[in-house]
């Protein structure tokens, strides 16, 4: 009988003996997890798979790349055994590149830079290589603190960013970087991350732990429409909030949000109108969920527990809307970013 498995790629901070990007094999039935390879890389605090899962893109979240005062993005080809072959990289025209995303067609890679507050669009060659930047978009000149946290394509034609400089979700046109619209979060929270599911955009604050739900009206009105604001933790929660990542299940039924101090992932059910209802909060078996990712078949979640130097695997129970810890944690120094493949067969 054929064995099913997932492959996950774990980006790490280059501390505590980290070897770079770790390739992980997860048995789809037993959830037994093992490290199958480590590829030398520097501060890979953001990783993303392309749609074909043949290429992995990783940020170089440092202050220098190729001798320039920049971060960068590197491309890797995924070999049959899960090992990574580096295909080179490009500077990203800003330091501490913190987030990377690939568009649906695999033709563009987007990266954003925590320092300088720039975001960058790179064309992708057919062999997966990242080509020199075609677009570098600067923050508003008047912004005092020029910083960006998250970038991702919004549909085919737009790119969204979470701007710390403007404390806003800002939408640009993907082709030429023209600014289309923005939503400034009230009361100056610390915005962190956003996720798209269908016609809805979910923007999460790191502190306080609010999620803003928007309807994407870009095509119709050139804008986004606020539908809801809901906290990651329950209203009665009195602990500390410092959220990290927000991801939707591939079928769009659930939205998952991690909070680091409470070592938890909250599961929201998405209603038909895109709004959220909190269903459950899962306690993680480790410390500091900096990132997590959902497999393409929506079955498992792999979380990077940065402070306890390990990753854990959870299964999504679609009946009850809860996450269930599965298998044993695997030790990896300072894991900071996760990308999980679809289910594969040996």
């Amino acid at each position: 009988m054929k064995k099913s498995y997932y492959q996950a790629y774990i980006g790490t901070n280059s501390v505590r003996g980290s070897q770079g990007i770790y390739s992980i094999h997860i048995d789809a039935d037993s959830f037994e997890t093992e490290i199958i390879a480590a590829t030398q890389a520097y501060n890979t605090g953001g990783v993303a798979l392309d749609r074909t899962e043949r290429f992995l893109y990783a940020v170089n979240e440092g202050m220098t790349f190729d001798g320039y005062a920049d971060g960068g993005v590197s491309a890797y080809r995924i070999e049959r055994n899960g090992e990574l072959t580096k295909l080179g990289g490009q500077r990203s025209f800003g330091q501490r590149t913190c987030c990377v995303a690939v568009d649906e067609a695999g033709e563009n890679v987007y990266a954003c830079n925590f320092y300088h507050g720039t975001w960058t669009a790179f064309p992708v060659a057919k062999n997966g290589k990242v080509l020199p930047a075609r677009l570098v978009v600067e923050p508003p000149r008047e912004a005092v603190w020029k910083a960006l946290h998250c970038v991702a394509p919004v549909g085919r034609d737009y790119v969204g960013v979470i701007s710390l400089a403007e404390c806003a979700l800002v939408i640009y046109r993907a082709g030429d970087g023209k600014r289309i619209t923005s939503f400034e979060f009230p009361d100056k929270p610390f915005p962190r991350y956003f996720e798209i599911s269908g016609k809805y955009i979910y923007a999460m604050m790191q502190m306080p732990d609010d999620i803003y739900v928007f309807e994407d009206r870009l095509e119709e009105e050139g804008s986004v429409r606020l539908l809801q604001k809901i906290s990651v933790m329950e209203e009665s929660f009195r602990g500390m909030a410092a959220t990290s990542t927000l991801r939707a299940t591939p079928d769009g039924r659930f939205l998952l949000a991690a909070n680091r101090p409470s070592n938890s992932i909250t599961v929201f059910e998405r209603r038909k109108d895109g709004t959220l209802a909190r269903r459950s909060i899962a306690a993680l078996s480790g410390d500091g969920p900096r990132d997590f990712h959902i497999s393409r078949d929506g079955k498992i979640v792999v979380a990077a527990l940065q402070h306890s130097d390990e990753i854990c695997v959870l299964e999504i129970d679609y009946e009850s809307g809860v996450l269930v810890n599965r298998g044993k944690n695997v030790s990896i120094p300072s894991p900071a970013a996760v990308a999980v493949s679809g289910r594969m067969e040996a």
Partner: protein
Amino acid sequence: MTIEERLFRLEERMRQSEARAAIADLMSRYAFYCGAGCGERILTELWTKSDEASLEYGASGVYTEHWKVETFYQKEPVPGKLTTLSFSTPLLQVSPDGESARGIWMAFSTETDAGDLGTAVPDISDARRALLSSETAEGKCYRAEILLQKYDVNFVVEDGVWKILHLHVSEYFRCPYDRDWVRYAKERLLTDGMWLESLFASSKPLPPQSHGENLPSGPSTEHWQYGTDRVPDTLPG
């Protein structure tokens, strides 16, 4: 010109001259303290106490606040490790009021870590072994590098004594002593990030406000390093 005017000009020149001598002396002490591993003395004797202090090294970004500057100098002595600095004659400008100054030095420096040849052999799992850029025929790794740096320093007078307020070190090149900076230009890129982080890795616990991280306070202001495809940047203003 009246006697008073001549006296005033003479005093002015003397003030300038004394300031230049004091600053040159300060930087000589900086170099000696570096070589002697006296980072704490650099902090207490040569740096301002002000939280306006800032330090930038290569593409590190700017580290402001005093505790961040301190991390650059707080290093436990390790047998077989050595940093030396040899400064050129400076380009020095003292403000007319004699309260601040800026100086630019070129420096030929060395960085040494005996690595596997020493008595404090780094752990095999320590990623910073990548900084050991030379290797013996037996495969033992160590570091014996030469560096060309530019020191761009702002000074202020504090309690009547000249102190460092901002320090910006540009690292034009670094390479192992047994190779040259042209052949090593590409290889150094692999460890540039690690090298910068190691410079700001303190041997003391970070203060609570650091949240366990010692990140720069802001991006780089200016950076240039040698590359086989690069021309030098313009002179500093």
